[in-house]
């Protein structure tokens, strides 16, 4: 690592003056705003800590710690609801704040699951959060029982008070909290089950919303630490490339620029303000060694993936003998599909603020995985994990982008070079995109055979998909199969006697990562579009064809039928408009959608309405579930219509919103959400499952208008003029 220092203020002098000015005590007090109460990481809530999960103050305000990341999916409301369900507190007195990853490290993983992804927040933490609430409630009751010298079983709780009805006495939780905190229960109480809930299943407004309408919610980019400098960062535009040489003089000539630092695969410009740093960065003409991937092309990669489809792949799932039955089938249809690499494009460009002191390190950022950043800081800075404090902020969108600690690693390396001067590192939109990780490229082939009556007898599927896990967790890739590549295919739900689902695991220089709904985003598209092709070959209506093949899956059938019924499937549509239907199960939830689409004769597509039925088993907050359905449909629709990250000459072509068209208000369809809940003990995810059906429902509708099968995403690359 090299550093270039601005004259006359040397780095040494600068560091010294910074330390002298701000001292060493700033870190725990480093709240950037007057309304610090709205900061998610505030911590140290007033009142008595009943357990790591909650505190109760003398006015009975309950602060519940959230160990998942708030990126719009509503965990700052849903997680507290799970605790409050059992606690019987007054919901209007509930506050949420982030749980501390540092504490979880120090206290043997007390916060359990701190990574947010896989639509897992509710289904992976529900039971222990309910347990935390129930346990606190019973301890408050035990405290009251001791105070009043009555049997605990004669007490009840409601809205933040313990009642002894026989004597007419009651006490607020705030009064009992200190005594409750000292009580240990002989045994943990049972938690409530579906059917016994008071709060769960109630539509509630989100706790974080008020702070998000007045500018007071703090995102990572908003953090300001006393004495902080700003850094603009950029990396080699080609993966695996490196900085060959850099003349820092043009940047150092910019007012406010202090230093240019070469770090890992790029460089950072350090200045008194972000714009000065950015101006300095833009003034530089780095000489990159583009490395061995300077000619990489996604067109060439796609062509290679498609060639692989001509060969048998590794069998991911097999029933009967698909090959023999395709051979003997009366009719066979075949189609190839593909979906491109795709950036996440969260609204907030990635950023990270780091302050390194002698005895502790503080990191502020919006992350889906604070523990991975804590680990990265310990590794990069050579510090004990117990001394690293990661302060999670609200995330300006996640979608998977913020579960990768790449940006924090760069920021930590820059901070290490700066020593004790706190630094905020901010990526430009373009740098965020090109240093990000992409939804994998995928190519898929389907072959279906039908008997003389039109009944499907065999289904062959081959996919060639860039593997996420082969690079990230190679130990879980068995026999060349990455489950995240074949999800939605290997578990295809249709009742066909002979099935072979095969896979080719692919890797290219393009970095890939989890993108909202992961493999299901491409696989759901391709499978459900092909099912419509099969329905046509069988001479059946797309709904009736699916119904006939889903009779062994009552939950899927129920959800499919609800979407069809709520959309009045088959209703007369105006010329140039049509309905399309699709269903997909992912992350423990089943989602069916009917898209109503218009295509003008000049080929312009407009999605007018999307009717959704969702079975996520049970609900915590039906309002945020509807919001997640709307969000998934629109995120999925942007991808379906226009989304592509092309690679040319080893570089991403679409880096900013001028070339990444996304759905705006005028293009947003009306979206309806209907619940087809199977209930019982089943809890499914909700952040992702409503995405996979959108693209196929739309392309299936487009076919009925234009006669054009769209087998490659995005839709915009196809000429859809008709009539």
């Amino acid at each position: 690592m090299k550093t270039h220092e601005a004259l006359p203020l040397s780095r040494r002098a600068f560091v010294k003056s910074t330390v002298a000015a701000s001292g060493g005590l700033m870190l725990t007090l480093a709240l950037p705003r007057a309304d610090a109460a709205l900061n998610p990481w505030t911590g140290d809530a007033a009142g008595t800590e009943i357990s790591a999960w909650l505190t109760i103050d003398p006015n009975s305000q309950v602060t519940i710690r959230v160990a998942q990341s708030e990126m719009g999916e509503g965990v700052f409301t849903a997680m507290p609801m799970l605790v409050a369900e059992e606690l019987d507190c007054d919901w209007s007195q509930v506050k949420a704040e982030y749980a501390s990853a540092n504490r979880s490290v120090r206290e043997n993983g007390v916060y359990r699951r701190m990574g947010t992804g896989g639509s897992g927040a509710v289904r992976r933490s529900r039971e222990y959060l309910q347990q935390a609430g129930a346990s606190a409630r019973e301890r408050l009751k035990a405290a009251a029982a001791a105070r009043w010298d009555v049997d605990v079983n004669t007490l009840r709780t409601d809205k933040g008070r313990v009642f002894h009805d026989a004597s007419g006495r009651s006490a607020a939780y705030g009064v009992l909290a200190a005594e409750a905190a000292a009580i240990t229960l002989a045994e943990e109480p049972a938690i409530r089950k579906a059917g016994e809930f008071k709060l769960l299943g109630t539509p509630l407004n989100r706790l974080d919303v008020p702070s998000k309408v007045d500018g007071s919610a703090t995102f990572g980019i908003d953090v300001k630490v006393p004495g902080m400098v700003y850094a603009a960062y950029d990396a080699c535009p080609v993966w695996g490339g490196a900085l060959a040489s850099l003349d820092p003089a043009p940047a150092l000539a910019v007012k406010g620029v202090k230093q240019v630092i070469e770090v890992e695969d790029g460089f950072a410009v350090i200045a008194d303000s972000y714009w000065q740093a950015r101006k300095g960065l833009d003034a530089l003409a780095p000489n990159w060694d583009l490395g061995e991937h300077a000619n990489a092309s996604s067109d060439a990669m796609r062509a290679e993936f498609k060639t692989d489809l001509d060969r048998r792949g590794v069998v991911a799932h097999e029933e009967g003998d698909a090959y023999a039955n395709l051979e003997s089938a009366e009719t066979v249809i075949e189609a190839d599909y593909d979906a491109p690499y795709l950036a996440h494009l969260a609204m907030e460009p990635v950023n990270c603020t780091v302050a390194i002191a002698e005895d502790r390190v503080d990191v502020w950022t919006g992350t889906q995985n604070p523990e991975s950043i804590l680990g990265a800081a310990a590794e990069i800075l050579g510090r004990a994990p117990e001394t690293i404090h990661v302060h999670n902020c609200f995330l300006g969108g996640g979608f998977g982008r913020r579960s990768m600690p790449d940006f924090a690693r760069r920021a930590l390396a820059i901070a290490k070079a700066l020593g004790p001067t706190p630094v905020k590192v901010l990526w430009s939109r373009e740098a965020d995109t090109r240093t990000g990780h992409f939804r994998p490229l995928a190519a898929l082939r389907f072959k279906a055979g039908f008997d003389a009556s039109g009944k499907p007898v065999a289904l062959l599927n081959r996919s060639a998909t860039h593997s996420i896990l082969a690079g990230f967790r190679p130990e879980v890739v068995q026999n060349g199969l990455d489950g995240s590549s074949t999800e939605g295919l290997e578990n295809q739900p249709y009742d066909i006697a002979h099935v072979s689902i095969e896979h080719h695991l692919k890797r290219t220089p393009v970095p890939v990562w989890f993108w909202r709904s992961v493999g299901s985003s491409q696989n759901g598209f391709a499978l459900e579009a092909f099912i419509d092709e099969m329905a046509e070959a069988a001479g059946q209506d797309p709904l009736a064809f699916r119904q006939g093949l889903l009779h062994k899956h009552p939950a899927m059938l129920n959800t499919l039928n609800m979407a069809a019924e709520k959309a009045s499937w088959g209703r007369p549509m105006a010329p140039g408009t049509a309905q399309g239907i699709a269903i997909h199960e992912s992350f423990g939830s089943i989602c069916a959608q009917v898209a109503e689409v218009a295509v003008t004769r000049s080929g312009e597509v407009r999605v007018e309405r999307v009717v959704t039925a969702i079975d996520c088993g049970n609900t915590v907050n039906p309002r945020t579930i509807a919001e997640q359905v709307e969000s998934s449909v629109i995120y999925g629709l942007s991808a379906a219509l226009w989304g592509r990250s092309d690679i040319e000459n080893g570089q991403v072509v679409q880096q900013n919103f001028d070339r990444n068209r996304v759905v705006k208000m005028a293009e947003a369809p009306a979206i309806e959400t209907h619940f087809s809940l199977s209930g019982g003990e089943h809890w499914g995810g909700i952040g992702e499952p409503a995405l996979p059906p959108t693209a196929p429902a739309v392309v299936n509708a487009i076919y009925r208008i234009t006669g054009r099968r769209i087998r490659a995403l995005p839709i915009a690359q196809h000429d859809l003029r008709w009539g």
Partner: protein
Amino acid sequence: MITLTVNGKTHTIDVEPDTPLLWVLRDHLDLTGTKFGCGIAQCGACTVHLGGRPLRSCVTPVSAAAGQAITTIEGLAGDTLHAVQQAWIEHDVPQCGYCQSGQLMVAAHLVDNNANPSDADIDKAMINICRCGTYPRMRSALHRAAALARDAMADA
């Protein structure tokens, strides 16, 4: 030195005149409600009001804003929240929330200048990007905000 009037307060700031207004608000005045999204006036996360009209501050040199009234999300509310802020809360609009300051500045201007915006008016005015897809809720909240604003006028 540049003199700026932001949310009714006057500030004199030592900053290069070509610095985008966005970064002066965020880094110099600590008004971080206004967000950086793209830097090329495509997404609208940086929208503020200049002389009462929505403006994308990421491409506006601070020198061009000197001497005019600037309103940011922090200054949108008066004694009470603006009708769009109230309606946004009622309709539970924000998800991640990052784009919402910019969305609200556009929405406020629409409602302040159109007592009863149609869906077409909303489509035309609301051209900022939201990656969470809060558009359907923003639309219903805008209709609600217009009704709240009309009620307030009738009461006045």
